[in-house]
């Protein structure tokens, strides 16, 4: 079962991922905005760090990521098994 630390880390990954979605869309129409680019690059770096941290502790985040043996992607819980609203 997912412990609180895992859910908190996953939440942070989702939050930073969303910032990246937003900054990327903004930069599509504002490619010279230095502040937005800095925000994007900071978020990108944070995303890489969080992802590495998560995967070192809990296994692959997506099925594109490396796994120990046995294949870790199928280890639960699945997104619909997590109650994010209570965190």
């Amino acid at each position: 079962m997912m412990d609180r630390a895992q859910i908190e880390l996953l939440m942070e990954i989702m939050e930073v991922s969303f910032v990246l979605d937003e900054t990327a869309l903004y930069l599509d129409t504002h490619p010279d905005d230095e502040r937005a680019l800095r925000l994007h690059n900071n978020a990108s770096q944070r995303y890489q760090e969080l992802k590495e941290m998560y995967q070192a502790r809990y296994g692959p985040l997506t099925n594109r990521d490396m796994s120990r043996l046995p294949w870790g992607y199928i280890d639960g819980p699945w997104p619909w098994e997590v109650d994010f609203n209570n965190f």
Partner: protein
Amino acid sequence: MDRDYGENNRPCCPGSLARACVPFQTMNQVFSPREALKAGTLFPELVNSKFNTGVSDWERSWKYDG
């Protein structure tokens, strides 16, 4: 065969049904990542408070990215 689709007879602007007007966005303050995910946008100016009544706590706690 020449068909008349009416495009040459159409008056330029006065006859238009509608014209889109989208102001160019300029980044100002941004939400914290947590607030952004909750709000569905990173940009506070894109939140229409008319449709978000009752969830204004995070709107009041805007953060700067430094």
